[in-house]
């Protein structure tokens, strides 16, 4: 059964005056040893899913879900204490902006050693344990690819480059040997060389340690290089999910198709000087979300029925939620409904 299983998760956030469904029936699963990519434009609620999973959500927001389980245990029903233990040993998170998620007034060494859990160290006097902590820390730094660890250890977060900080965040996440690593857009605003280093590091970890990764990004190139399965998100609704190859070859949902078309490197036969395909209109803001399928107003083959929220349908473990999927001609769909 899947490691992390999310079914019909709805999160209503408080925009100061009324509650808006930021996430509307999101479902997502991560298997053991699988790299699940979560794709969506910025502002589509990706980080909201992460904070819903780890519980860093203000108390007055309303979270309802059919299923939000971690290895079978329902996360919502758990007490803070149990949830904290899970977060400590089984799930690790790498946030978006590395420099702002490091304590500005503490040295990197102190922060790294602080995050090493007690259980890993064997008993003994505290100076032995501190020495052991330092060894583990240095080992970790080498593993994540920071060569001159001496220089970085004494420095403060605002004195190091962002990619080193990102590696540092990954090191801190891995120290407690988690089973699931949630990487929230960790390769954003990095030039390609460092981005490849990070991606190689993640896929290496997946193979060696069978570490399952929930990789959140809107950079399709990176996703296609390392992810096994992919889920596409639009304005808080899961649009399509399945294997990367299936989605790549035969996208069923118009939004996925538009998303793939918009990345030129994905086009096989792109004649020179041709117009890049892009969806008209812009992403609706939280206050004026359309009813039913949220792509409605911008969808090329939108019909009257799209006003109802499409439920999720499976096509041999390639699920999509759209009334008029691409593989079915439109008129055939019409008779079926009558």
């Amino acid at each position, binding site marked *: 059964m899947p490691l992390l299983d999310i079914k019909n998760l709805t999160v209503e956030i408080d925009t100061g005056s009324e509650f808006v469904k930021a996430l509307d029936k999101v479902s997502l699963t991560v298997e053991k040893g699988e790299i699940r990519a979560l794709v969506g434009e910025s502002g589509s609620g990706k980080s909201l899913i992460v904070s819903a999973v780890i519980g860093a959500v203000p108390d007055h927001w309303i979270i309802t879900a059919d299923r939000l389980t971690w290895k079978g245990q329902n996360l919502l029903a758990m007490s803070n204490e149990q949830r*904290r233990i899970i977060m400590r040993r089984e799930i690790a998170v790498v946030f978006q*902006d590395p420099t702002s*998620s490091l304590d500005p007034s*503490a040295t990197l060494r102190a922060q790294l050693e602080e995050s090493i859990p007690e259980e890993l160290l064997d008993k003994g006097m505290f100076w032995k344990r501190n020495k052991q902590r330092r060894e583990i820390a240095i080992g970790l730094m080498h593993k994540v690819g920071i060569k001159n660890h001496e220089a970085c250890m004494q420095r403060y977060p605002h004195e190091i480059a962002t990619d080193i900080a990102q590696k540092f965040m990954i090191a801190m996440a891995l120290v407690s040997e988690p089973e699931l690593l949630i990487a929230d857009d960790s390769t954003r605003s990095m030039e390609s060389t460092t981005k490849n280093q990070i991606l190689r590091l993640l896929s290496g970890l997946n193979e060696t340690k069978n570490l399952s990764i929930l990789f959140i990004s809107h950079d399709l190139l990176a996703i296609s290089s390392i992810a096994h399965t992919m889920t596409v998100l639009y304005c808080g609704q899961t649009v399509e999910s399945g294997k990367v190859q299936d989605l790549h070859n035969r996208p069923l949902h118009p939004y996925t198709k538009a998303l793939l078309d918009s990345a030129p490197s994905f086009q096989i036969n792109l004649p020179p000087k041709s117009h890049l395909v892009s969806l008209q209109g812009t992403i609706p803001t939280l206050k004026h979300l359309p009813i039913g399928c949220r792509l409605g107003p911008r969808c090329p083959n939108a019909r009257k029925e799209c006003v109802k929220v499409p439920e999720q349908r499976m096509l041999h473990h390639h699920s999509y939620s759209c009334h008029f999927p691409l593989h079915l001609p439109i008129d055939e769909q019409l008779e079926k409904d009558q």
Partner: protein
Amino acid sequence: MINLLLRYINLMVVTITTLVIISFSLAYMFPGDTLTNISGIVPQSEEQRIALEAAFKLDRSIFVQFWYYVDNLVSGDWGVSFSSQISLLDEISIAFPATLELIIYALLISICIGIPIGFIGGIWHHKPFDFGVVTFSVVSYSFPVFWIALIFITIFCLQLGYLPLSGRVNYLYDIPHNSGFILWDILVADTPNKNDAFADALRHLILPTASIALVTTAIFIRFTRHSIMDEMRKGYIDAAKSRGFTTRQIFFKHGLRNSLLPIIPLMALQISTLMTNAMVVETIFSWPGIGNWLIQAIYQRDYPAIRIGMLVVSVFVVTFTITIEFISRAFDPARDKFERDAV
């Protein structure tokens, strides 16, 4: 670090020189005869005036006078007070420690009570305790210090009769002047009934310190509460939470230091409100401090005393502020080197 040190030393030197120049020029700005303003002695006869002018180098150029004034300041010959004809150095070395004692205890109280309450208020944001903390801090911040002192006197001294009303210690205890800090002097003195004197001095201390500490505690509570609330919203707190630390651990490991560092220089600035309140409270509790002494000096138009008293107090306050600012700047790696945070 070193150029930061040099930078602050230069700032200190520049400020203290400005203060000395101001206090030097005060002698000429004060009404009345400049010679009395400087020396404190009223020349009886004409030839005494000439002798005094030669002694105080009034006839020489302004720079020589200034140099002579600085040399006197350094050597401790601060002139004589106009009304009591006692050397100013002795008067100030008796009066200033008394005010210092009040200010130190008030600062300690504000730190030990203000900061924890501010933190608790900030962490339990929007909970009953937090509303209590906010109302307490806004209300006690707006008490005029002389009025709250009078209310304390009416309640604790006159109606209940628990606490004494004025002075530092009951004058029947003959405590020799040692360091000027009354509690220390009692401990060091060899008078027979020392512990009675100590208890009596403590009872004399309660009300003045409480009336000064009230306002500063309120200010500290506001500072810490705002700072911890901003800090708890930052990214690294969520990152720490995601690593499974409890809020208490997060607070002590990260929240405490990061929220205190930006507000330490602002707390140091509160020394000037503390000093003003101390001077006002001294006149009410007739505490023999520098505030009381300066205000009596102004009533008696004792210009040499005002001049030197002003210099001593402002040099102390300025040095204290700049050192605290330097310490906080040196030990806070994250903040921009030359900017000061606004609350």
